[in-house]
């Protein structure tokens, strides 16, 4: 039985979660032009930070705050120590991929393969227009939109935001107008770390934290950025909801066995028709 109301409700929650997951990736990849596959690792780090802090009795909100710090810290280190010195984008891609694997296997060795449950940020349920929502899911929705709004405003309407884009397009040009490109890129990475770290906490509270939890979010983030079109935050948000909807719809109304597949096939079709995604800009060079 296909229940349109619950499909709609689930899409809203899932799309928000996916948008949140993709946001940090969009910032570095779409806006600053570097594909950071360690994003998957940052999500894991965020989730386990919250789990650990909550386990120490710090409470999950403190855990969330801590996760923003560890996420940012990881990115800052990754960028300062490695990425900054690399100019070939393919090498950035592979290096961050390897960094992600190092993070994953470190968690496997230290924590083990069993999933851990990150406590909900908010317990309980409420009912809106006859549909019941977990407070935790509403929180995801709200937080996601707060981040989306903040990021959108930041990138499009602040000088620093414009500087991020400028740096990604032409580093020499950015230096010429007085942008401290190094600081700007570092800031971008740190911000993305904050986003990915917090996404990890929410993702973990919804789906359990485990050493290999980064894969799905990473593929999702990648797919979302591409489907939305590189460089477009709006595109990413829309793509997140499209993918969320396709997943929910396929599971509910078609077959769970095809759940991943429909979204992927739709992406292929969209890209064949619009090779730069929904709102993408032409790639440089």
């Amino acid at each position, binding site marked *: 039985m296909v229940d349109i109301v619950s499909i709609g409700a689930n899409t809203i929650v899932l799309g928000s979660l996916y948008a949140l997951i993709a946001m940090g990736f969009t910032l570095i990849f779409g806006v600053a032009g570097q594909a950071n596959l360690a994003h998957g690792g940052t999500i894991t780090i965020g989730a386990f930070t919250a789990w650990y802090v909550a386990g120490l009795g710090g409470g999950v909100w403190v855990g969330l705050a801590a996760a923003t710090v560890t996420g940012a810290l990881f990115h800052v280190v990754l960028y300062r120590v490695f990425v900054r010195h690399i100019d070939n984008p393919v090498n950035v891609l*592979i290096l961050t991929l390897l960094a992600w694997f190092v993070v994953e296997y470190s968690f496997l060795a230290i924590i083990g393969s069993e999933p851990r449950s990150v406590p909900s940020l908010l317990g309980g349920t409420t009912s809106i227009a006859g549909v019941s929502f977990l407070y935790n899911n509403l929180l995801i929705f709200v937080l996601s939109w707060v981040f989306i709004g903040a990021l959108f405003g930041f990138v499009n309407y602040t000088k620093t935001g414009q500087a991020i884009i400028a740096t990604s397009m032409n580093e020499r040009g950015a230096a010429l107008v007085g942008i401290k490109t190094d600081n700007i890129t570092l800031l971008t990475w740190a911000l993305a770390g904050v986003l990915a770290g917090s996404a990890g906490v929410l993702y973990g509270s919804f789906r359990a934290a485990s050493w290999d939890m980064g894969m799905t979010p990473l593929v999702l983030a990648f*797919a979302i950025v591409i489907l939305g079109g590189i460089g477009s935050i709006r595109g990413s948000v829309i793509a997140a909801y499209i993918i969320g909807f396709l997943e929910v719809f396929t599971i509910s109304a078609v077959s769970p066995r095809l759940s991943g597949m429909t979204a992927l096939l739709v992406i292929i079709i969209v*890209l064949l028709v619009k090779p730069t995604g929904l709102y993408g800009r032409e790639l440089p060079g």
Partner: protein
Amino acid sequence: MPILTLRQLTAALFLGMFAMSWDYVSGYTGQLSFGHSMFFGIGGYTAAVLNLELGISPLLGILIGTIAAGIAGIIVGYPALRLKGPYLGLITLIAPIVLVQIVNIFPGTLGGDAGLPSPAGLIPVDDTIAVLSTIGFETSFEHQTVVYYYVALFLFLAIYALFYVFTRSYIGSIFTAIREDEDAVRSSGINVAKFKVFAFTMSGTIGGLAGAAFVHTPVGEPSVGELLYIVVSIEVVIVSILGGMGTITGPAVAGIAYYFVRDALQTSSLTIPLLDVTVGHISMVLFFSLALLILFFLPKGILPWLEDLSHELAERRTDQTEPTS
């Protein structure tokens, strides 16, 4: 050489072949594929299913598997004309993910997640082979291992030679030119589309050939874990980049090294002093850290680095012999 090393070398040779097939299209033309396992998988599964279901001989099965993978190459090559960079990367990444799901949906013929049983061997090594017995190989396992080692070696060398010839010919120079600037190539009067599709087709064909042969040897099984998973594709990319993109030789050799280094770390029971864990326990952490450092310090890859190094040495030597110029 110990018999097990020989066997591992056989498996490592296949990794080298997979990596070469990636390098041919991605390293040379710059069309990055994150899902090359689709070709290994299509080649391998086609050959295995034909043999298991229809009893088609391994050789014919491999041929058909190779062609099927080549056709897949054409199919991927066309969108590659429209899609650039990461957009293409995503499409190629998606393809094997979808294939894995298809395999799961048809567990009957395709074996599901557990894989299919091994199809017939490429070369039947029923009993012991006289020649080998005289040089000290005893059991039929040893004989089989030796025979398949040579099969793999032959295939490896053949593929290497083929790619080498192509990439060192004018085709290679067109490929790398496409990687640098398609418009410049077009204005030189060259049909870029034709060469791009060709690169994918040939890469797919050879990747499929390697995959198809792989499942007919004792070192390979027709299973999603060995042929289709994202990690398979990713490994091939890592190997090629560490070895040196766009060199064929680099990925070929790095494929073999990769296998053995990883294996050595995994089986090491050495205890790391301060941490008090064995190397084996954190082998993957060490392995990927090592790979990361290599990539960081040798951004062009190991082979190009060695080449630069030897040039430098050679220059220094000539500088010494002719002190003034």
